[in-house]
């Protein structure tokens, strides 16, 4: 077992990536991800990490560089946030279509404008359809664990897809937390060397990322969809193995006091721990409140979500981004869609909150619960609301 140490989460993530023996990192620093770039660069410069650190001139180049490196068979890593992720967007579907198991940390930060460097999920939500396996960390330990698991999931022969780990900017990235880093020996036992499905090498020439016309394009998209859907089985296997080896268990959907809950709240990322305190307070008052935390965003865990909420009367879905002029928050619209097929689903409410780094203390979560409990006519079921904005 590794030692329990106090580390800033971004530094701990960089340490975890080094434990995965990455061959290459192409990272362009951007707040609040910069310390991942800096610490990886330091480790390479100090000779602690035997890898190529490519100092790219933009995030577009970062993603291009890791695609190229991964195609040669190198274990490749990058990290970004906000505008950087948007600049990478053009390359993201290419990485997944080429089935390159690149791993990336996203230090979630609001997208401009106005310019804002603080946390919400408006950077990752527009990347929903790029074919990346998408995980959300709730605390520093999860950020470390998911960063290591990401390589094992991505590089599994039945997956071969890129994986991104979402780590809330500042709320998580800049916290100093007591975390446990596994030892090198433990990571080596968990994570086998990368065995690529094909490599760019003159000894065996291949073409990657070739052109495809209408006679093949639909078949290729179907194959990609099946690949990411099938990855769920491997994700569950990897999490099962992680639990056995390290004693920390991971599920696509986590629940807290949800079993007998009449009113449930759903969160993603770091807000879960604060919402948990609100649930405790409500339980002390005799209110049957509970929490559902979505860790796996893609592939979307339909069965697990249905099972987690089926007995509740009301479900509050919280969102850290808005689909402007659309159905509310992106998480809300996905959850509604996932529950549509069932006969019995809770009445659903949507609060969009914590935008651009706005603090969300416990009383905001209890406030959301109380507002929904007071809605006897279920009037709000199809509406969404910006929580806490000044009227």
């Amino acid at each position: 077992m590794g030692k329990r140490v106090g580390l800033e989460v971004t530094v701990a993530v960089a340490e975890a990536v080094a434990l995965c023996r990455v061959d290459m990192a192409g990272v362009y620093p951007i707040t609040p991800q910069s310390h991942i770039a800096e610490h990886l660069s330091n480790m390479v410069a100090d000779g602690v990490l035997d890898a190529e650190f490519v100092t790219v001139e933009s995030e577009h180049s970062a993603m291009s560089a890791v695609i190229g490196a991964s195609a040669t068979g190198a274990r490749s890593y990058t990290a970004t946030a906000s505008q950087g992720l948007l600049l990478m967007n053009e390359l993201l579907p290419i990485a997944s279509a080429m089935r390159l198991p690149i791993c990336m940390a996203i230090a979630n930060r609001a997208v401009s404008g106005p310019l804002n460097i603080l946390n919400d999920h408006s950077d990752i939500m527009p990347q929903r359809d790029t074919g990346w396996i998408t995980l959300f960390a709730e605390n520093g330990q999860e950020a470390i664990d998911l960063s290591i698991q990401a390589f094992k999931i991505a590089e599994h022969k039945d997956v071969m897809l890129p994986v991104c780990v979402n780590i809330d900017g500042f709320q998580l990235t800049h916290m100093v937390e007591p975390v446990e880093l596994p030892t090198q020996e433990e990571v080596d036992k968990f994570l086998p060397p990368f065995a690529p499905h094909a490599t760019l090498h003159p000894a065996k020439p291949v073409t990657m990322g070739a052109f495809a016309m209408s006679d093949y394009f639909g078949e290729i998209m179907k194959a990609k969809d099946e690949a990411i859907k099938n990855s769920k089985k491997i994700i569950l296997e990897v999490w099962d193995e992680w639990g056995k080896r390290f004693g920390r268990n991971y599920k696509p959907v986590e629940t807290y006091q949800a079993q007998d809950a009449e009113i449930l709240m759903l969160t993603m990322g770091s807000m879960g721990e604060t919402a948990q305190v609100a649930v405790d307070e409500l339980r002390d008052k005799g209110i049957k409140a509970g929490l559902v935390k979505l860790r796996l965003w893609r592939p979307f865990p339909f069965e697990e979500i249905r099972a987690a909420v089926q007995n509740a009367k009301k479900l509050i879905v919280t969102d850290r981004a808005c689909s402007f002029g659309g159905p509310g928050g992106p998480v809300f619209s996905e959850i509604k869609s996932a529950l549509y097929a069932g006969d019995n689903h809770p009445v659903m409410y949507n609060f969009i909150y914590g935008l651009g780094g706005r603090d969300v203390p416990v009383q905001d979560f209890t406030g959301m619960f109380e507002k929904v409990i007071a809605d006897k006519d279920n009037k709000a079921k199809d509406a969404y609301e910006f929580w806490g904005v000044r009227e």
Partner: protein
Amino acid sequence: MALKTWKELPIGCVVSEPGSASEYHTGSWRSQRPVWNDAKCIKCGICYVFCPEGCVQQFADGFFKANLDYCKGCGICAHECWPRAISMVEEG
């Protein structure tokens, strides 16, 4: 060439056979084909130089023709041919 189903596609659509693009006959895209009038042709080779597909060939007699398996009918050869020896003819 029978088209593959989605299940038969190689992972990541990696093309493992070098030069296999030649099996794809881009000539099927063509709506007009270039026809050379050898009486006007001065064998300068400008059609050969400008063909973006590299499908114009010179034969033993010094005159030129396009390989119609790959000629997309773009008409660049006809446009560049200054003695006007090439005309674009509608495909039937």
